[in-house]
């Protein structure tokens, strides 16, 4: 295959990871950073070439009868257990993986570049770049996977690199516990994913995506009428696979790790916890969408989980005071939009517009959310605090950052012509097409999005004008502002990409046409949200204070994220640890270990008791022997007579 050079996008980062990981400490920090960035640049060029060749090339039969083909450009057999159980490893190019190639390589390259400035002078700079390379490798491997098993391997690898990067400041207890939390929660979700994979492949006899999705009806029917607890096994498999996706994508109730993950360096939050890794769950559902499309129950579960999470996260984001946490909850909310969009998509409604909308939003969201996070990083860099109370009036000090952040906010709020408007509009169209309930629900959440993003914006750049003392905030260095400018431009123009031509659920072209009744309403709602934020937060005043006091209970609950963390704490500590783990530990220590200890102790004390008899005098032993022999002889004789 011509496109087989795509595999280089996996080889270069993994090589860089090994190189920087092993000999990185020998290099100077600058060399290591530049090497990592250059390697990432090369990877980006290759990824772009591959993706653009895939979308626009004409000579390889990518498009047959208006249907874009899925190309397996590399296919190696890795493990062959039996004739049926073969695990392959390869590279699959299809519309969504090619799109993800662009997203991941762009954001990753920008973050590499940005980190040169942001992480300047940090301890473990080389290690940081090694981990970034590892993450890029794993994420690209995940999207290019040809089969679900390969995807699972890379899925775990991104989990590991996320863990390593969240815990990058390993001397801070908060970072350490956040990394553990992220790892354990996602691992727990991956358990569901693994069981789902096993059920699915048990009934369909294949791991391969193309054979799974090319004929979903057949795949479903091979399961026959097998049911479990009232649902068919396929529903169970798909729901469990979605559970893995929900863990990675921080869907309620598995979202608790993402806000804490903000303890990691900010560029990492931008790359992993906003743009790429957290959309892996969306990608997974999209990858298996033809299967989900024939299973209404699984789709309903996805819709409900997504819609609820979108609302919940938006509500929490309205009251948080740490800027990275606001962004984290807005990420959760936006990903929930994509998930809901997949949930409401079905082939009959508008040619499966929800699928296209979800992928479109994934693309634009990655760009503007990375932009927002990188801006937040620059702001934190300037004022040395995550708290909004330490900021205000920054528009005078950081003009580039201000404009870039404003673009990001407008994009996420859905104001034309910024990117978020187009993709969010498609999602709303899909939701209204499915049912008015979800349409109205998502419109409300979209309004809340506009409100909390502009609350954040005004609190940082307007509000009051605190005395920064001798330490005046200043614009970030060039390596940091360039990614902001670039991503800002992308966020402006990305909405005009005719996305329907490239990515649709059945790989046929779909022409996007704006539905002005939906688009108009969403613009009005977004403007209302922005206006509300403007009234409340443009200048320092006490309206927010009064409102918070009026709804004290609600405000406190939202500020504490509706006590989800406390609930988890309660369940794990009071119920699982105290009621289940403790008795098991007691049984293990007392009963199982106790039995073994008892045996050893009996032998020990018995030998202590008889040790006096071992005097060392040989003739005493002979006496014992003689007496014993005579006694035995006597007993024998008595018994015989």
């Amino acid at each position: 295959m011509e496109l087989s050079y795509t595999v280089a996008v996996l080889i270069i980062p993994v090589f860089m990871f090994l190189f920087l990981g092993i000999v990185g400490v020998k290099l100077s920090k600058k060399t290591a950073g530049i090497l990592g960035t250059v390697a990432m640049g090369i990877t980006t060029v290759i990824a772009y070439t591959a993706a653009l060749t895939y979308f626009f090339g004409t000579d390889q039969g990518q498009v047959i009868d208006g249907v874009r083909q899925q190309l397996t450009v590399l296919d190696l057999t890795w493990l062959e257990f039996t004739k049926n159980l073969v695990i392959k490893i390869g590279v699959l190019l299809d519309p969504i993986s090619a799109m993800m190639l662009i997203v991941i390589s762009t954001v990753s390259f920008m973050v590499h570049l940005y980190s040169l400035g942001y992480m300047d002078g940090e301890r473990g700079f080389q290690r940081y770049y090694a981990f970034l390379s590892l993450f890029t490798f794993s994420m690209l491997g995940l999207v290019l996977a040809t089969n679900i098993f390969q995807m699972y391997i890379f899925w775990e690898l991104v989990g590991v690199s996320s863990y390593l990067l969240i815990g990058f400041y390993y001397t801070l207890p908060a970072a350490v516990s956040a990394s553990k939390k992220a790892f354990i929660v996602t691992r727990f979700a991956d358990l569901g994913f693994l069981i789902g994979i096993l059920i699915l492949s048990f009934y369909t006899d294949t791991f391969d995506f193309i054979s799974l999705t090319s004929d979903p009806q057949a795949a479903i029917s091979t399961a026959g009428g097998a049911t479990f607890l009232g649902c068919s096994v396929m529903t169970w498999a798909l729901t469990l696979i979605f559970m893995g996706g929900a863990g990675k994508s921080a869907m309620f109730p598995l979202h608790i790790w993402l806000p804490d993950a903000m303890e990691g360096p900010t560029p990492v939050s931008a790359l992993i916890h906003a743009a790429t890794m957290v959309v892996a769950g969306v990608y997974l559902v999209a990858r298996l969408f033809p299967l989900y499309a024939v299973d209404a129950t699984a789709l309903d579960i996805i819709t409900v989980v997504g819609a609820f999470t979108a609302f919940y996260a938006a509500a929490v984001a309205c009251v948080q005071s740490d800027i990275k946490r606001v962004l984290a909850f807005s990420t959760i909310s936006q990903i929930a939009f994509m998930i809901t969009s997949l949930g409401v998509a079905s082939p009959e409604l508008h040619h499966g517009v929800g699928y296209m909308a979800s992928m479109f939003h994934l693309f634009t969201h990655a760009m503007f959310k990375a932009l927002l996070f990188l801006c937040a990083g620059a702001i934190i860099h300037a004022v040395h605090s995550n708290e909004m109370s330490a900021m205000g009036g920054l528009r005078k000090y950081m003009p580039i950052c201000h404009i870039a952040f404003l673009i990001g906010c407008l994009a996420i709020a859905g104001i034309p012509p910024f990117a978020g408007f187009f993709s969010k509009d498609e999602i709303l169209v899909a939701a209204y097409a499915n049912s008015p309930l979800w349409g109205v629900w998502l419109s409300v959440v979209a309004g809340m999005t506009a409100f909390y993003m502009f609350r954040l914006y005004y609190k940082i750049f307007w509000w009051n004008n605190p005395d920064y003392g001798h330490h005046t905030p200043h614009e970030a260095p060039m390596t940091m502002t360039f990614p902001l400018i670039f991503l800002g431009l992308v966020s402006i123009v990305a909405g005009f990409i005719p996305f329907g031509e490239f990515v649709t659920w059945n790989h046929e072209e779909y022409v996007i046409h704006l539905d002005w009744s939906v688009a108009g309403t969403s613009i009005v709602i977004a403007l209302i949200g922005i206006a509300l934020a403007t009234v409340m937060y443009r200048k320092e005043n006490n309206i927010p204070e009064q409102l918070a006091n009026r709804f004290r209970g609600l405000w406190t609950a939202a500020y504490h994220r509706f006590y989800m963390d406390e609930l988890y704490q309660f369940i794990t500590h009071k119920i699982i640890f105290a009621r289940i783990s403790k008795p098991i530990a007691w049984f293990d220590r007392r009963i199982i270990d106790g039995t073994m200890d008892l045996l050893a102790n009996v032998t020990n004390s018995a030998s202590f008791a008889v040790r006096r008899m071992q005097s060392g005098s040989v003739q005493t032993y002979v006496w014992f022997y003689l007496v014993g022999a005579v006694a035995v002889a006597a007993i024998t004789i008595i018994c015989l007579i």
Partner: protein
Amino acid sequence: MFGCGVYGFITRRNMIAILISLELMLNAVDINFAVFNRFLFPGQMEGMFFSLFAIGLAAAETALAIAIVINVYRAVRNVDIRQLTKMKF
């Protein structure tokens, strides 16, 4: 004769003397084998052969015991069994 051997084995202090007592016991057993064979089963020869084996074994065992005694003497300059009580708990 066996009784003499047992008595000597238990009471003598010199290891060489103990060894001699051991030989006495072995020889007593040999004689018993030969005599009982002659009187109880005159037609068979097992007892005779058994005493022959025992004589051969006794020779080997004596050589071993002498070697041990010599080594013990070299190590502690003493062949008194009552002094050799190092190997106790």
